[in-house]
């Protein structure tokens, strides 16, 4: 066991994968000798050589497109998009190609690959270094979308994603890269995809969240507990394919639900959680479902702390659904 930050856990996961599987490759912009702009890939080129960890031309379309060809021909690419905000030139490759290759070829060709990318606000990155674009990708059959919130899960989910037979978009909450540490086992272990994590037990209100919103919701839950409201905090971890049965079960346990994400609300992932609960457990609901989300605006720079849901807003929603 080592006490690691989330980014160190990602780095450790990459090293373990590359040591145990010679087909694993890491590439992207500045990921080589520099080790990535956040240092997620630090030391990889030195340990594994330039043919297995290398810099590419500055082209997200090229990075993901090349990864698809590599994956189709027996390699296990783990490519990095420097910021999730820059992924959109590769949208066609992800949505039209990687996600559909198995289906459209009748299973003859597949694209087992991982696209790692830091997402979300909290670093004063403005419009283009702060976005949470998970909803765009969760609307894509054939793709898996994974978001860790702890160092343990970051490594375990990453290793599970690398071993997965299908393409995985691995969104890393950059706000948590260095803000928290946790125990991380050495060597290889996996956290199963499509499984929820109960971050906190509680019988009064269920709070669904993921990524950088998990510690925010935990803080709000602590404050709620001081007021006598016990929250069940559920870290979704894998958004697609989602453990829907787990979501329904967690909603039924309290009958009061708050869904939290920093992405804009309209057509956001919280809408899907709300709909699943409405379709499957509405008779258990004691209060309308509340969503706490980013606003339906672009992501601001100076006022980002007003844009991103914080414990104050989450607590307000918890109290609202509890007192309804």
């Amino acid at each position, binding site marked *: 066991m080592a006490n690691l930050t989330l980014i160190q856990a990602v780095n450790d996961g990459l090293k373990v994968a590359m040591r145990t599987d010679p087909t694993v490759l890491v590439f992207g912009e500045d990921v080589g000798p520099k080790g990535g702009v956040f240092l997620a890939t630090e030391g990889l080129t030195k340990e594994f050589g330039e043919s297995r960890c290398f810099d590419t031309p500055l082209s997200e379309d090229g990075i993901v497109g090349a990864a698809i060809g590599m994956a*189709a*021909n027996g390699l296990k690419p783990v490519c990095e998009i420097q910021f999730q905000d820059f992924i959109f030139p590769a949208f066609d490759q992800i949505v039209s*190609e990687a996600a559909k290759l198995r289906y459209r070829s009748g*299973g*003859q060709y597949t694209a087992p690959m991982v696209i790692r990318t830091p997402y979300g606000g909290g670093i004063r990155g403005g419009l283009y270094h702060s976005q949470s674009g998970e909803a765009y990708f969760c609307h894509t059959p054939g793709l898996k979308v994974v978001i860790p919130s702890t160092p343990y899960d970051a490594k375990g989910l990453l290793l599970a994603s690398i071993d997965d037979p299908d393409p995985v978009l691995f969104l890393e909450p950059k706000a948590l890269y260095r803000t928290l540490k946790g125990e991380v086992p050495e060597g290889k272990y996996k956290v199963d995809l499509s499984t929820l994590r109960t971050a906190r037990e509680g019988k009064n209100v269920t709070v669904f969240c993921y990524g950088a919103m998990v510690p925010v919701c935990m803080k709000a839950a602590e404050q709620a507990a001081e007021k006598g409201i016990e929250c069940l905090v559920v870290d979704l971890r894998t958004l697609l394919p989602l453990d829907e049965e787990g979501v329904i079960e967690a909603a039924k346990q309290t009958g009061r639900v708050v869904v939290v994400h920093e992405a804009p609300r309209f057509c956001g992932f919280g809408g899907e959680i709300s709909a699943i609960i409405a379709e499957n457990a509405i008779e258990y609901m004691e209060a309308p479902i509340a969503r706490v989300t980013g606003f339906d605006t672009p992501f601001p720079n100076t006022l980002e702390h007003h844009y991103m849901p914080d414990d104050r807003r989450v607590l307000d929603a918890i109290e609202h659904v509890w007192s309804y």
Partner: protein
Amino acid sequence: MTVQEMLSVIEPDGGINGYDPKMSNEELLHCYRTMMRVRAFDDVALKLQRAGRIGFSIPNRGVEATQIGAAAALKKTDWIFPSYRDFGMALYHGVSPVDMMHNMYGNAADSAKGRQMPVHFSFRTPIQFFSISSPIGTHIIQAVGAAYAMQLRKEPHVVLSSFGDGGTSSLGFHSGLNFAAVWKSPVVFLCQNNQWAISCPSSQQTASESYAIKASAYGMPGIKVDGNDVLAVRRVVSEAVERARKGGGPTLVEAYTFRMGGHSTSDDPTRYVPKEELAKWEKKDPVANFERFLAKKKLWDPALGAKIAADSFAEIDAAAKVAEATPRPGIETIFSDVYRDVPQHIRRQGQAAFDLAHRKGDASAGDGAFPL
């Protein structure tokens, strides 16, 4: 020769001016027969589409020499990342017309399980003919990734990435050529300049003097070849393939040709292609061009040509009848292959669709049982 000049091999009289393609008579006739089978496939597919038996096809008339000449430069251990107007390459390497017709019908025996439009083929044998998608240019950079795997494993294989003149305007063209040049990838980029991207002429696609010249800026050789001359295309692509095989990196080949038919069976080219242009290219017919060469070598006469045409039509027509008699895919194929393992939400949706079909009595014989 400069990058702007166009290489031809077959002279108007059928001679080849001292060039030796180093091909056996059987290899030459295999090229010819495959061109004729492509032509027959076009004819049968058009007939089926007009009769409402299939929904769509992509005609190849005019570009057969480019397809077959390029295919003839490859080994079966090489990979093809094709466009949708390339299936002569698959035929050349031994994909059966029956397997292709299953795709045209989207039936239960289709390798894509009826999920794609016709002509979106996908084969792993006898050559890797990569799954075709409709978005333009996306496969150009993917080919470079597949080639990277060959480089890493030190395999002596090459990837052919084929696209049209319209494809050169795509994001994938730029990233593909740029990555390949930087990585010295074993890739041959084949731009089939057939003059038209659906209704848009090449002059609206680029202001460059040619497509081949674009190679210079990427840092790779570029060469323009007569795309209606099967021996010239084979020669140029072979040289590029051998260079790539020896670690010499990628090449951009521009095959200068003409799409004699519509973009697809849904397109009417008489609305935009000038009659004079069509008439001009009619005289450069790639099959007739090759026949002149074969005749001079005493390998061909009109009687043999007629027999091969008739045999080809019969073969493709018979393949269509096999496909026509094959049932459609079962409903379960909507839900399988999205992921390797069917996730619970898709399984539930599939079960509901399957139950509804049975409840309403419209589940037909092809439908298998859930769970998958």
